[in-house]
């Protein structure tokens, strides 16, 4: 026990220091919130690095980015921190607004505080999904679509005109898809409303449609190589030639096209779903003023919008952003009129019913 006596001072000194840190903990967050910072949860490359550096230099506001890769995970993180989140700006897909709003996780967006709001294309800012309960809830920054991607060395453009090819024996074990997204697409492919808004008054029919889509995907399970989750995974599978075709978001595939990989994408004739990513201010955001300053700067010019498209491969929501893109970038982020005619946007009205049916169905497909 002698060593204890000899190190008493050291021990008490350390204990005192530790006590100080613990005692100060309640004040740390307040101090953090008062500093010139803005905390953002967003997807990889959504905030261009060059813009971030310039913004920090011009305003002195430090930009802290935490990457997210899934809407559900982001919702759960935010819900766990509510009602006093550490984040100021989150990235919510337009069709997920309702869930965030109902849970009081977002603050209504005061577009009057954003002098550059007019730089956004009104197709996105004035869409029916953009205004809920009489308020705007986010600034649309990028738009995307669920597409069919294919290796042009292995699959012909003619074959890729229909989702049929994804379930054909010819490409057995050479396909991949995000299973949850595919549930909506399969419903559309079979002639139903994948948003399930039409069946809000008929839950039994909704359940029967989800069961049909589930059974279809179980039946085709031996044809698929991989159920994946993120854009990087499908890029990797195409590069390694583990797959010949697959369902994907247009952004990661546009990046592959721009990198010169022999891949192309299409919206098949049966149609598909589109979505819009928006930046939103969290309810009780600790640095709300800084968040508005950041958003206004981000919306300042179409070059920034174009830069976001170059970085992510998603379609810009800024007016005239395409003027600043290369020909290849323009090609990789645009669709023909025929393709766009089949594109519907995801809607949120029936989400509660839809996902209460789809989530267990996804587990059943995985377990089958």
């Amino acid at each position: 026990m002698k060593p204890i006596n000899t190190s008493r001072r050291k021990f008490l000194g350390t204990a005192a220091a530790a006590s100080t840190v613990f005692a100060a903990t309640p004040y740390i967050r307040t101090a953090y919130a008062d500093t010139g910072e803005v905390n953002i949860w967003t997807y990889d490359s959504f905030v261009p690095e060059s813009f971030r550096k310039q913004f920090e230099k011009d305003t002195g506001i430090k930009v802290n980015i935490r990457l997210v890769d899934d809407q559900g995970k982001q919702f759960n993180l935010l819900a766990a921190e509510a009602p006093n989140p550490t984040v100021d700006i989150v990235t919510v897909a337009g069709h997920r607004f309702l869930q965030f709003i109902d849970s009081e996780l977002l603050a209504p967006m005061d577009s009057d505080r954003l002098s550059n709001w007019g730089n956004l294309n009104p197709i996105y800012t004035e869409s029916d999904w953009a205004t809920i309960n009489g308020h705007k809830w986010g600034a649309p920054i990028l738009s995307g679509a669920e597409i069919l991607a294919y290796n042009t060395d292995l699959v012909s453009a003619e074959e890729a005109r229909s989702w049929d090819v994804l379930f054909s024996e010819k490409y057995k074990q050479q396909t991949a898809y995000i299973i949850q997204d595919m549930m909506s697409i399969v419903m559309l492919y079979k002639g139903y409303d994948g948003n399930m808004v039409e069946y809000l008054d008929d839950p039994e029919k909704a359940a029967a449609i989800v069961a049909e889509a589930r059974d279809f995907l179980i039946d085709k399970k031996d044809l698929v190589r991989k159920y994946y989750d993120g854009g990087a995974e499908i890029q990797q599978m195409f590069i390694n030639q583990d797959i010949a075709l697959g369902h994907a978001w247009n952004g990661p595939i546009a990046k592959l096209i721009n990198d010169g990989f022999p891949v192309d994408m299409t919206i098949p004739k049966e149609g598909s779903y589109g979505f819009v990513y928006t930046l939103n201010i969290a309810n009780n955001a600790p640095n709300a003023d800084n968040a508005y300053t950041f958003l206004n700067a981000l919306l300042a010019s179409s070059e920034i919008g174009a830069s976001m498209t170059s970085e992510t491969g998603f379609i810009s929501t800024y007016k005239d952003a395409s003027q600043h893109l290369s020909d290849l970038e323009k090609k990789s982020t645009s669709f023909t009129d025929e393709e766009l005619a089949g594109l519907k946007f995801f809607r949120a009205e029936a989400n509660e019913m839809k996902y209460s049916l789809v989530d267990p169905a996804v587990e059943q497909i995985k377990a089958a």
Partner: protein
Amino acid sequence: MITDVQNQQKQSSVSSLASESGNAGQGPGDRIPFWGRVSGRRGYQALVDFLFASERRQFALLAGIPFIWVLTQHLGPVLQMLYVSFLDAYPVAVGAQTHLTLKHYLLFFEESVYRMPFLRTMTYSFALTFATLVIVYPVAYFLARHVKRQNQLAFLLLLLIPFWVGEIVRTFAIMILLGNNGAVNLLLKSLGFIDRPIPFMYTGFSVSFGVIYLTSLYMLLPLYSALEKIPASYSEAASDLGAGAWTRFRRVTLPLSYEGVASGCTLVFLMSTGFYAAPVLLGGPSTTVFAETIAGFFHVAGDRWPTGAAFACILFLASLTITALFMKFMGRLSSRGRR
């Protein structure tokens, strides 16, 4: 010679400076340092006398920090998870109330769809633990019994090098190795064994390969430690008594290494049940493990964390129960082996 003289001069000037500064430090005008002032106070002395009055108190003081650490950092999250598993909803919406329920545990027993990944996980874990043991035992044996003592550390370091990087990086390395354009397929193709790549990836094989690779170290070290302790004279004695190589291994080496086998298998089994990244990145549609099912409840937007928490508790309890039974079995085997 000149350098020695210069060094001596330097040392003498340094010591004279030190002695001067030491004298100056004891001058009457100097302030007593902060801790000196604190230790001189009556309150401090009373506190110290109280804390160090007995060896039991000193022990309590010493054990306090590790105890708090284990309680808050190790047990705390598990207990919180256990608590969440009994709630009807979590994260709790603002203004909403929660109630205690057992429904999340019942769901596991009611829905066969969730039992399938659980059984698959257990089957994988048993099979992969056994496979890891079979693969790693000869390596550990070679290292402990055939590599010269002075070279053993170098060999161990060589085996440890891949573990200097994280699990995810090593998993991606496996993807590079086993992909259609990966090293294995390219080698087989260049040697003329195959025309088209073999689809190793996204199969039970790639998951098994990954898990064995990721856990092999945790099997190797306990085995090496156990085998290294067995005196070579035991085998020599058995040999003198007429035992062949296989009999020597079966009757002498193996029983004496049961302790290492038990530790290695326990570690690998527990790790295998909880692996998430490797099955997600390397697995295919038919290799979904229970950790992925659990993660699904935490990823999907909503308040289904309690179901995920309940399933995590079920996996935790099942793994611990199986491990306890296995340890008991190995304990019996070990004592029988010693006899």
